[in-house]
């Protein structure tokens, strides 16, 4: 591996972040993995090796493996076949790691986000804050199940761990 200058390394890291932004969550295809907040680092080390650190949302999230494969494929396609994918458990993911754009896209998709400051959770359909949490468990490990008391529609919310 040839050694690279800091500027070259920074350029590569920027390109990799752009590649990662094309990888969408397989379960929630409106947000990409960067917005989801599961990319912990993209770093070209002093030895020239490119490392991408990924963290799972939940220990048992079945999508993690698929996501890793999708990231691998995207990096290979964009010429980063030598990138090493590493699992980083710390710091652990929480809904706070969702980016602002990710949060907006999720809400437009019908998924609210818990834990973004008290009282911020709102019905993704009618924006009402009169809500009832039906269960801390929803259609995927990362979501809880709510009902809007205004429009009476059920909806999912990314839960705050």
């Amino acid at each position: 591996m040839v050694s690279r200058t800091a500027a070259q390394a920074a350029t590569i890291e920027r390109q990799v972040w752009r590649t990662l932004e094309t990888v969408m969550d397989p379960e929630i295809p409106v947000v990409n993995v960067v917005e989801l907040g599961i990319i912990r680092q993209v770093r070209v080390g002093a030895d020239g090796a490119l490392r991408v650190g990924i963290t799972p949302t939940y220990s048992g999230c079945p999508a993690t493996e698929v996501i890793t494969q999708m990231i691998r494929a995207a990096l290979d396609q964009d010429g980063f076949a030598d990138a090493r994918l590493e699992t980083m458990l710390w710091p652990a993911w929480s809904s706070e790691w969702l980016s602002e754009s990710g949060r907006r896209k999720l809400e437009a998709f019908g998924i609210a986000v818990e834990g973004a400051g008290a009282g911020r959770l709102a019905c993704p359909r009618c924006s009402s804050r009169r809500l009832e949490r039906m269960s801390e468990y929803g259609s995927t490990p990362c979501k809880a199940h709510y009902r809007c008391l205004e429009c009476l529609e059920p909806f999912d919310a990314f839960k705050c761990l």
Partner: protein
Amino acid sequence: MSATADDLTAQAGPQERFEYVLRLADTSLIAGQRLAALLGHAPALEEDLALGNIALDLIGQARLLLALAGRIEARGRDEDALAFLRDAQEFRNVSLVEQPNGDFAQTIVRQCLLDAWQLEMYESLAGSRDLQLADIAQKAVKECRYHWRFSAGWLVRLGDGTDESRARVRSALDTLWRFTDELLTPDVLDARMAVCGIGPAPVLIRERWQTRVRATLAEGGLEWPRHQHYRWHGKRGEHTEHLGHLLAEMQALPRAYPGVTW
């Protein structure tokens, strides 16, 4: 950190660390496998989703812990080899988690007793001097908190519910209480790991578990069950008959078709 503590950590050999991580890993794995069998069978959709999601979290924790155990052992066994190619006497889970699902009350009581223990264990292990174990614990403790909210919430509701639900939850407590001693009674390995700064002080876990469970039983109007002396030793591979049946189902496919993928 004092030199003495460093020396003691250095003394925790790979075999001891492997055994200790295996106890945590197998406990999560077997508990997860038990709950997974309830998919599509829970009394209501919300409970079905909850139990299925808890199973997923537990199996996820087990994968991380088994992978760590395999790295410590350094004999080329990965998480799949450890999960699918060991026999019952090689499993180190506490006997509580291999007990059958029974009725909903029994499932809830088993989960509640386990959640209280895992919650306290991972809370402490988050500060373990084994940093890889600490990382897994920090992730797991967040999950265990809402597992506990679910199972403790149900324990209270069943205890404080109808005559029928109270009778069933009492019966489940009587059936499963004898397995709680194993959670709280340290053996040589538990004590060693505590001294080495890898595991929590067992006396601390016992006190916190009892405080937590006592408060929840009281809230549900349930008495602290009578102490039962019989003790199992799942932690050292001496299991009840139920584990073999569970493993036969869980391991059938990878054993019949070694290395199979889809």
